[in-house]
């Protein structure tokens, strides 16, 4: 046991303007964090540095890394991982879980509708132009019934806690949301490093994701198939999420294939094995729409499978998520989510949406241009935190540039009030101490025919740079193990 000065929280500084998840308003530690706080406090900084180094090498040796392409040598890096877990109390989790399922179901009904009768447009709730002008809207999918009626089998919902203590959804990711493997490897790493802390908490396991994924994917098998063969389609080992693809294939017990391993014959899809061709029925694809089939989409795609889309349109194979699903995770569609939920489910949204200004509407554009320093400006169709401008962080010159971009193509931008993401104690290597860092939460929801599942945990992402609000790993974010407590 270290002395008081050595204890790792002794130098923790609390900024009163930020919502710190482990403290109550008046500076008292929240009940769920009390024990954890004590347990971590027993370690000296030296102990902790040691544990942190071990945890890092555990990730490294397991090859849970991504590549950074440098001048000479490609470097391997691990996703930064923080050993201090985030705890979500049972009552809070219940809201998140129900809210995530509600959104996934609503999005699925929305996708069915816009690719069929477009009633929500006819009823004047969502503008026609918003849908058909999206690059992710696929004409080919109009009138097509995806197997099992499911478009967004897998959804990743990004949720934050604002300084009002409420959860808000920032975006729905329903193209190829990634990160679930880190939920599991974070848990493994934390168990290896600090197994003792688990004795004091009743935490839900996160290892049942893959079995549920396979189970639910199989509810959307093509017609006439008894026992479907499922595969995971990856762009290949140089993709930054390759570890995740191989992890999912391995834990589902299915083959991990690349485009060149598949071939289409007579509109059925086969994989090339050492024993010849074997038919494939369900493809969990981690390849974007544009690269799926060079004969139908981007002809330069070397990742795709010529003829795959025809096999799909003929109903001979399931693609998860369905092509064209991306139209609904467009940031402009996000702003209609409360109305979308109400329209299809006749329910109030369980999770809040951040108020959004549409730059395509002249009056709202005017407001945005006048209040740009209070707003976050987001491009409608960029993923991964690219192209985001945070108004109060811009110089006056930068503001003028953003204003110009927005006024030139208002359809491309939306704006939201600057949300204050909650903060969580995070170990910072440079200062060898705990500091407040902003966090969000990505939950993983799987939707099938009459079956659904939310992983009880999710990925807590941390913006490691001080004051930074963008948590994406491509922008230097790290992550934390996330505990959902049992009742």
């Amino acid at each position, binding site marked *: 046991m270290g002395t008081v000065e050595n204890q790792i929280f002794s130098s923790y500084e609390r900024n009163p303007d930020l919502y710190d998840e482990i403290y109550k308003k008046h500076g008292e530690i929240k009940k769920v964090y009390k024990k954890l706080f004590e347990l971590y406090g027993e370690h000296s900084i030296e102990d902790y540095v040691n544990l942190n180094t071990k945890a890092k090498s555990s990730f490294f040796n397991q090859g849970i890394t991504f590549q950074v392409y440098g001048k000479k040598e490609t470097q391997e890096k691990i996703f930064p991982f923080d050993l201090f877990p985030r705890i979500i109390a049972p009552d809070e989790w219940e809201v998140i879980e129900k809210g995530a399922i509600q959104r996934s179901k609503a999005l699925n009904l929305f996708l069915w509708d816009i690719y069929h009768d*477009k009633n929500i*447009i*006819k009823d*004047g709730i969502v503008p*026609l132009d918003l849908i*058909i*002008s999206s690059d992710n809207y696929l*004409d*080919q999918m*109009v009138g097509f019934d995806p197997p099992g009626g499911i478009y967004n089998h897998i959804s990743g919902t990004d949720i934050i806690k604002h300084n009002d203590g409420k959860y808000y959804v920032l975006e729905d990711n329903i193209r190829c949301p990634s990160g679930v493997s880190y939920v599991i490897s974070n848990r493994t790493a934390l168990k290896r490093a600090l197994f003792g802390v688990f004795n004091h908490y009743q935490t839900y396991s996160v290892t049942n994701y893959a079995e549920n994924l396979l189970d639910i994917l199989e509810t959307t098998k093509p017609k006439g198939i008894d026992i479907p063969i499922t595969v995971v389609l990856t762009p290949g080992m140089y993709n930054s999420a390759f570890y995740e693809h191989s992890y999912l294939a391995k834990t589902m017990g299915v083959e991990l294939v690349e485009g060149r391993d598949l*071939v289409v*014959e*007579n*509109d059925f899809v086969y994989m090339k094995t050492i024993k010849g061709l074997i038919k494939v029925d369900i493809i969990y694809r981690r390849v974007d729409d544009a690269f799926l089939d*060079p*004969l*139908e989409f981007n*002809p330069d795609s070397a990742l795709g499978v*010529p*003829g795959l*889309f*025809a096999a799909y*349109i*003929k109903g001979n194979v399931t693609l998860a998520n369905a092509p064209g699903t991306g139209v609904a995770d467009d940031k402009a569609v996000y702003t209609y989510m409360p109305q979308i939920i109400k329209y299809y489910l006749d329910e109030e949204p369980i999770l809040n949406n951040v108020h959004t200004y549409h730059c395509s509407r002249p009056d709202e554009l005017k407001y945005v241009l006048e209040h740009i320093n209070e707003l976050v400006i987001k491009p409608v169709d960029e993923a991964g935190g690219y192209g985001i401008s945070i108004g109060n962080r811009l110089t006056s010159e930068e503001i003028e540039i953003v204003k110009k971009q927005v006024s030139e193509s208002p359809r491309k931008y939306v704006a939201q009030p600057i949300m204050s993401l909650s903060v969580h104690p995070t170990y910072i290597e440079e200062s060898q101490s705990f500091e407040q860092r902003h966090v969000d939460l990505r939950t993983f929801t799987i939707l099938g025919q009459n079956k659904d599942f939310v992983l009880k945990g999710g990925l807590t992402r941390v913006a490691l740079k001080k004051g930074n609000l963008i948590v994406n790993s491509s922008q230097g974010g790290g992550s934390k193990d996330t505990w959902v407590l049992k009742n």
Partner: protein
Amino acid sequence: MFLEYTIVYKAENNYANWVKNAHWQFLIIPEQNETQKFISTDFKNSLNTKIEYSINGYGFKTIRLHPKIEFKQISFEASFRLIKKDVNPFDFNLDNHTENHYKKLIELEFQIEFERFLKKSNYTNLSDSQKRLFIFDKSLSIFDNLQNLNQWTFNYLFFNAEATDVNTKLSEIIAMQKGVCQDFTHLFCALARQNGIPSRYVSGYLHQGNGFFGDSQMHAWAEAYIPEIGWIGFDPTNNILVNSNHIKVSHGKDYSDCAPLKGILNTLGANKTKHSVQVLRQQQQ
């Protein structure tokens, strides 16, 4: 009256280096519809590779092949025989509903139903100044306006096989006033859409017995939708309405939906491609 057509489509590809793992998709089979009925279809390739009949993303029939051997030269020959019903292109009722028709165009339901053929596409993009190149005269019927647009397009562009290729933008074509049937069709579609008329690009064959432009390649024309009447074919390259000389293969928002031949191949160096189309007609009793 019925006409019997025989269409022969040939393509030959030569490569400087060995080609491995190639895939081809042909979108050249005439559509089965009210006026076109199939007799037979035949497809040969010089490598004797197995061929597959399939569909593209819009349900039009395709032929696909994937040679398993390496090669430097491959040629294809397709021949189709079909019966075409000789129809009068003016065979519809042109009552005086002009005003109602224009009203229909701005109804949300109508715009939703035809969104695919009303929105901009890569090949039908007009610059702001070009949008006013042809404005409908609302005192005339939609059909009359479209006929005028057909003639206007025919007069505006000069047929020139060398001036453009598949990468030329519509705005450039408009500027140089030259082009081939694809360009005439894209211009027609773009301006029809600009006036709120759903219109689509059609790829097909033209019987050239009457000395029309068509360049013994595949031909392109447009179909525009007139409320209460339906899709009507316009051939702006020849300033005619589509008739029994036009044999339709497929339609789409523009050329990119209808490319007759798509190839995915792995080869370095130069390649040469030759296409030819022959359309023969005999009258049937």
